[in-house]
């Protein structure tokens, strides 16, 4: 079981990218499970994924990084026992702090993960404002990532993209940073993020 964590602030383009990644994996005959945690009384992303016949497991009743860490671990163990996916893709709410999720993973007692990769998604269109008012959360998204994907590069100004890359480097010099837009070939990204798939 390989684990892929997609974090990013609300509206950063997580779900859009996750849907592309899942479609790509399915085309490669990879058995995928998606673990979604949405805040709000009615989940939209899980409805959409189910509508597209994806295998979705939902964590309900709170935020994955606060009250649902234990549920995350038990759901992963259940997935391992009952479904044995090749890839588990975790999409937490955009309000979640990925650090808390990563801290919970060592408590997982199922079949050891073959790989564990954290991807953070930054929306350059309003990153400067969010970085000013949501500083700790944005920094955590960056610091807890193996890969930082700067999305919406087809819509953003060069300065906005440069800002996203600059603060990513400042807070996580080890991370690989990629610019992404709807035309970015997914295979290029996936070869980096999920080399085991190739």
């Amino acid at each position, binding site marked *: 079981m390989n684990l892929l964590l997609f974090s990013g*602030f*609300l*509206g950063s383009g997580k779900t*859009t990218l996750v849907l592309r990644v899942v479609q790509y994996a399915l085309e490669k005959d990879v058995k995928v499970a998606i673990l979604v945690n949405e*805040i*709000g*009384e*009615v989940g*939209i992303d899980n*409805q*959409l994924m189910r*509508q*597209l*016949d994806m295998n979705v497991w939902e964590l309900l009743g709170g935020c994955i990084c606060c009250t649902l860490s234990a549920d995350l671990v038990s759901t992963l163990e259940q997935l391992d026992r009952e479904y044995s996916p090749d890839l588990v893709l975790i999409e937490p709410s*955009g*309000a979640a702090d990925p650090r808390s999720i990563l801290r919970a993973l060592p408590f997982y007692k199922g079949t050891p993960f073959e790989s564990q990769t954290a991807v953070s998604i930054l*929306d350059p*269109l*309003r990153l400067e*404002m*969010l970085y000013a*008012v*949501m500083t700790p959360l944005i920094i955590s998204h960056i610091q807890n990532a193996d890969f930082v994907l700067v999305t919406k590069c087809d819509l953003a100004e060069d300065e906005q993209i440069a800002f996203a890359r600059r603060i990513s480097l400042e807070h996580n010099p080890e991370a690989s940073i990629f610019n992404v837009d709807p035309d970015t070939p997914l295979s290029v990204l996936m070869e980096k993020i999920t080399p085991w798939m190739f």
Partner: protein
Amino acid sequence: MDVLKLEPYAVTLHFSFPDIQGRWEELLSQLLISIAEESTKSGQAVVGHIKTLSLFPENQFFRVSVIAPDIPPTTEGGVPPGRTELVVTLNVLIYGMAQADLEEIALSTAEKLAAEWKGRIYPET
């Protein structure tokens, strides 16, 4: 600014617009932008995400999403042609506002829009 308070608001809305003539994207975009504008005009709130989803047979869907009043909405999928009624899930995630205030803004904005577009929008009970 109390930006850390996040009280999500969600509702299922029924849309009935006999004269819509396929302009669902325009209508839903206008709804979400208006909610974003109303929510942020006091300068005390930050839009997290405002989005709608409608589901149709055969894996079809229509999703509209707004992250700021001054950034154009993004859409995915589409509404099948000829529809004059729609069931829409609306999620409003805005930092710095109470859920009751978001509900008031969302429902009053929908009501104004319905009058402007000569249709009806009403929440599921």
